[in-house]
C-alpha cells in the first residue's frame, strides 16, 4: 500500500521542497522503510526502485540549497558500466539485480567481514545529507543522499597498522552491466571499475557509504545498492555498486588513472585552479541553472578537508 501511494507522486512533485517534506512526514513514524527492507530479505528480492527509505537529515553537514530535480539526478548520469552516454544508465538500469548482494570488507584488517547488503543497511543509523556532487565535466547537482559514514564500517573491521589506502571495486558482470562488454574499438575503461582513497580520506566523517537518495532506496543508475559519496572530490571518485572494499598498503591504481593518467589523478580533489586538459575547472553549471557559477575549492568543503592535504602540492597531486 505504502509503496503504491508514494509511487503516485511524480518526480517533478518530489522535488518541490514542501511536497518532499510532506512525503517525508508521511513515511515517518513507522520505521516503515526498514520493515519493508526486512520483508524483502525474506523473499530475497530487492526493494523496488523508489521504495521509501527513512532517515533524518543531518543539517550540520548539509548544504542549504534546493535539491536538483530528482528526474535530472536519475536521467543524467555518468555510469560507464551501463554505457558512455548520459542517458544510457537510466535506460539500462533494469538489468542490474541488487539482491542478493554482498560487500566484502577485507585486506589489511583484523576482522574481515562480508556483509549482506540488507545487514549493512541496518548495521548503522542512516542519515540524510545534502551534498553538492561536482562532476569533472564541470557540471554539478545538489543531492540528498542517505547513508552513514564509511568510517563506521572501517572501524568495525579494524584496519591493521599497515593499511594506508582503501580500494573500492564495482561489480563485474557484462550481462548486468552491458558497458563492460568489450567494445568494437576497445580503448574504454578496464573492468571492473576500481577506485581508491587514502585511509584518512576514507575515515573522514564526510565520506558517506550511501544506500539511498531523495528519501528513497538508491536507484540502480545512481549506484545501487551501495556506493560511496566523497563530496570534495570529482564524481568519478565515488565508486558505485560496490562489491569489495579492500584495505591496502599501496596506493591503488584506479580505473580512470589507468585509462588517462594525465587527465585523472588519484586525488582528483575539486580544485578551481587546476584545470583538466579539456575543461577549465574554474566554473561549473549547476544542473537546472542557466549561468555558470564559480567552483569552490574542495567543492565548498575546504573548512572540513583542507587539513588532510597540508604540505601536499595539489597541482602535482591533482
Amino acid at each position: 500500500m505504502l509503496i503504491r501511494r508514494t509511487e503516485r507522486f511524480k518526480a517533478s512533485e518530489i522535488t518541490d521542497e514542501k511536497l518532499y517534506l510532506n512525503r517525508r512526514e508521511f513515511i515517518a513514524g513507522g520505521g516503515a522503510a526498514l520493515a519493508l527492507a526486512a520483508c524483502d530479505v525474506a523473499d530475497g528480492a530487492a526493494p523496488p526502485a523508489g521504495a521509501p527509505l527513512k532517515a533524518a537529515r543531518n543539517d550540520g553537514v548539509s548544504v542549504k540549497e534546493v535539491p536538483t530535480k530528482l528526474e535530472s539526478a536519475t536521467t543524467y548520469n555518468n555510469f560507464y558500466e551501463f554505457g558512455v552516454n548520459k542517458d544510457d544508465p537510466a535506460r539500462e538500469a533494469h538489468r542490474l539485480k541488487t539482491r542478493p548482494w554482498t560487500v566484502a570488507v577485507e585486506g589489511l584488517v583484523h576482522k574481515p567481514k562480508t556483509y549482506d547488503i540488507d545487514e549493512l543497511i541496518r548495521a548503522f543509523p542512516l542519515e540524510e545529507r545534502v551534498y553538492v556532487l561536482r562532476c569533472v565535466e564541470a557540471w554539478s547537482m545538489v543531492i540528498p543522499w542517505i547513508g552513514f559514514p564509511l568510517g563506521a564500517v572501517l572501524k568495525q573491521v579494524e584496519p591493521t597498522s599497515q593499511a594506508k589506502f582503501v580500494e573500492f571495486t564495482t561489480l563485474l558482470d557484462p550481462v548486468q552491466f552491458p558497458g563492460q562488454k568489450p567494445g568494437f574499438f576497445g580503448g574504454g575503461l578496464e573492468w571492473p571499475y576500481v577506485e581508491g582513497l587514502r585511509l584518512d580520506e576514507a575515515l573522514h566523517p564526510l565520506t558517506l557509504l550511501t544506500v539511498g537518495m531523495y528519501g528513497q532506496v538508491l536507484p540502480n543508475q545512481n549506484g545501487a545498492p551501495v556506493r560511496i559519496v566523497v563530496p570534495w572530490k570529482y564524481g568519478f571518485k565515488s565508486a558505485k555498486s560496490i562489491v569489495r572494499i579492500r584495505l591496502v598498503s599501496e596506493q591503488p591504481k584506479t580505473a580512470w588513472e589507468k585509462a588517462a593518467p594525465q587527465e585523472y589523478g588519484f586525488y582528483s580533489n575539486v580544485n578551481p585552479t587546476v584545470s583538466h586538459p579539456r575543461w577549465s575547472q574554474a566554473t561549473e553549471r549547476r544542473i537546472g541553472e542557466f549561468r555558470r557559477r564559480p567552483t569552490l575549492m574542495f567543492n565548498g568543503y575546504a573548512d572540513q578537508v583542507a587539513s588532510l592535504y597540508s604540505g601536499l602540492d595539489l597541482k602535482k597531486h591533482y
Partner: protein
Amino acid sequence: MGRRGRLVLKIFAWAVCLAPLAALAWWIGRALWLHTDDLGANPISFITNHLGDWTFRLLLASLAMTPLRIVFGWGWPLLLRRLLGLFAFTYAVLHFSVWILVDHFFNWGQMAEDVVKRPYITVGMLALLTLIPLALTSTTGMIKRLGARRWTRLHRLVYLTGVLAALHFLWLAKVGRTDQYIYVAVLAALLGVRVVEWARRLVRRAGKIPPPRPATPP
C-alpha cells in the same frame, strides 16, 4: 537533369539542412513553455552538441559531393555543394554563438583561456576561421572576380577545415566514446577519393609526356 528535377533536389536539400534547426526550435519551445524534458538535464550542453554534430555532418555532406561525381560520374551533386557548405557554416556560427552567448555568457577571460589552453577549442576555432573566407567567396560574383583557378585553389582550404573539425571531435570525445571515429573514417574516405583521383591524373599526364632522352656521354 531538367529544371523540375533541380528544383526538387534543391527543395529536398533545404529541407534536410533546416530539419535539425526546426527540431531544435521545437524542443526549445516545448522545454520553455511546457517544461518538457526534451533537452535533457543539461540543455546548454545538449544544444551545443546538437549544433556541433550537424556542423560536422553538413561539412562532410558538402565534402561528399565531388567524390560522388568522381566515383559515379553524376553531375547533380555539384548543384548542392555550395548550399551544403553554407549551411555547415551557418551551423558552425550557431554552435560557436551558443558557446559565447549561453555557455560562457560573455565571460571573455575564461573564453580566451579556453581558446589558448584547450587544444580542442583551439582547433574548433581555427576550423570556424577557415570557413569564413569560403563563405565570403561563395557567391557567383566572387567566383568570377577571383577567377575559377584562384577560387578553386582557395576553396581547397575546406580540406583543412575537415581535418581541424576531426581533431576537434577526437580531442573532445571522452574515453570510451566511439562515434567520433565514424566521422573521421568518413572524412578520410572522402579525402582519400580525391587523393586517388589526383594520383591517377598525375599518372595519366606523366604517360603523355615523352620520356627524357638518354644522356649522351661526354
